[in-house]
């Protein structure tokens, strides 16, 4: 599928994501938008049927749900239940009843270890399977991420790729002002993983990075992204928590439509 077509899918997914969050009056839009491009590219262009995907940043469940919707694994009726009573689609994924979902996530710092276990099992079973795990950047303040990284590097889990959505913003400040770390690269490199970078809103760069993995090391792909890209509260703390107002939602849809026309 050409990149242009992928861009169209991303725009469609983005509109559906905003609509879904707006109608559910749900926040966490910023972190959903920042990783949506990568999620779409990964699922449409990279993942093989037997591969595994772990959404460690469970607060981006909306982006996963609409990605599965673009793949035909969910329908509109499913998405309409998002964050409603009696739903299979809570704001953080429950880990059951959803295509491809293996674990409940939402508490940060769990995904890398779960992914390491899956990668280890694949090696043990001689299955040519790759494991992808999507984390946030703030999530790496959890010690468990580093425990998992040490383990994965030691066991040479070259069938594991951890993607980090490095948008620089977390719950109550920037990663720079909270832990003096706006770029995780040197710290992760020091642990012995193979680190690549890409503009997280550039489809070509994301795809190229995901296709050029190290053959003998744990792969880390750091995506430089913008939280809430294109929204009224782009790159602000508001984008982490607050739902869109009607005005903000209409404006965002208008911008997206114009982009789609381009």
């Amino acid at each position, binding site marked *: 599928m050409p990149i242009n077509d992928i861009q169209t899918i991303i725009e469609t997914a983005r509109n559906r994501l905003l609509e879904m969050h707006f109608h559910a009056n749900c926040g966490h839009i910023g972190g959903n938008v920042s990783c949506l491009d990568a999620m779409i590219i990964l699922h449409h262009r990279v993942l093989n049927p037997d591969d595994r995907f772990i959404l460690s940043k469970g607060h981006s469940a909306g982006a996963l749900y609409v990605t599965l919707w673009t793949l035909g694994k969910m329908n509109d009726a499913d998405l309409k239940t998002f964050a409603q009573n009696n739903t299979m689609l809570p704001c953080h994924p*429950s*880990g*059951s009843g959803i295509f491809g979902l*293996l*674990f*409940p*996530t*939402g*508490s940060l*710092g*769990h995904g*890398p*270890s*779960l*992914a*390491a*276990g*899956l*990668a*280890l*099992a*694949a090696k*043990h*079973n001689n299955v040519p399977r790759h494991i992808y795990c999507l984390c946030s950047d703030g999530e790496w303040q959890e*010690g*468990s991420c580093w*425990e*998992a990284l*040490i*383990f994965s590097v030691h066991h040479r889990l070259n069938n594991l790729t951890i993607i980090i959505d490095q948008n620089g913003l977390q719950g109550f400040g920037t990663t720079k002002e909270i832990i003096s770390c706006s770029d995780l690269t040197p710290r992760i490199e020091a642990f012995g993983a193979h680190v690549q970078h890409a503009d997280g809103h550039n489809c070509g760069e994301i795809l190229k990075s995901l296709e050029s993995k190290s053959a003998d090391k744990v792969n880390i792909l750091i995506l430089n992204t913008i939280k809430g890209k294109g929204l009224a509260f782009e790159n602000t703390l508001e984008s982490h928590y607050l739902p869109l107002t009607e005005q903000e939602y209409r404006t965002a849809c208008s911008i997206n439509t114009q982009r789609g026309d381009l």
Partner: protein
Amino acid sequence: MRNAFAAAVTAHHNREDCFFLTGDLGFMALEDIKTAFGNRFINTGIAEQNMIGVAAGLARENMKVFVYSIAPFCYARPFEQIRNDICLSDLSVCLVGNGGGYAYGQMGPTHHALEDCAAMNALGVQVLVPAFDADIASVIRGFSSPTYLRLGFDERPEGAPVPQYAPWRQVLTGEFGAIAALGPLAGVAWQALLDVPAALRPSVWAVTEFNDKEIPDEFWTQVSEKTLFTIEEHVVAGGLGMHVALAMIHKGIHVSKFVHRYALGYPTGRFGSQAFHRAQCGIDSDGVRDMLMEAKR
């Protein structure tokens, strides 16, 4: 019990679909498992959260996984990983906590496990507290859901035969009510009352499983209108005593007296051996005999 545990794992679980993870513990105990399991034995290092997450990943791919550490490092340090990664997906992981209760004695309070059964029960984990070495092979034989195995010491009277395994089983007869003793304390109570005439002592029941397990009718018959004793090396909250009391109410059983001995934590602020702490809590041999006197007063 850890040697018996290692023997049982090596004998019955050395299969291609079974992994053994340890958090850098098991020196002079797990060597045979390490040899037998080869690359399915993994020392995951001093990183318990990761160990549980890795176990969950393996179990999600249909492996059975043992996870071993000193008890508090096994159930308390990675509590959220147990809850989210293992229990919410109902995975076949057996958490093995060595040194239940005060078993690590002089190592100090960080190494004691006094609320483990309650914590794991609250998550719906199958809690197993073997009383004797010979129980271990039976209790871990077919685990297929989240399980917590609390290891201690086999303390049955010297030379005493071990009754066939059952979640609840009588190990000593008696007519003055009955004692429900959690795991190894059954051996302690058994020894303490051995020379007391049967007419004057309670029967002793070894309790290994107390979540979702029916208490045998014979036990209720023995305590009905008599004294019910419970003894456990575990805090009162969420322990065997509370479980039995609730079951008794549900069942409509009436007892003449309920005597409960349990872990009090560190009542004097001083620390010592397992025997020291048991004595402070009244859950050693003297404590068992004292319970009996208390009931007769």
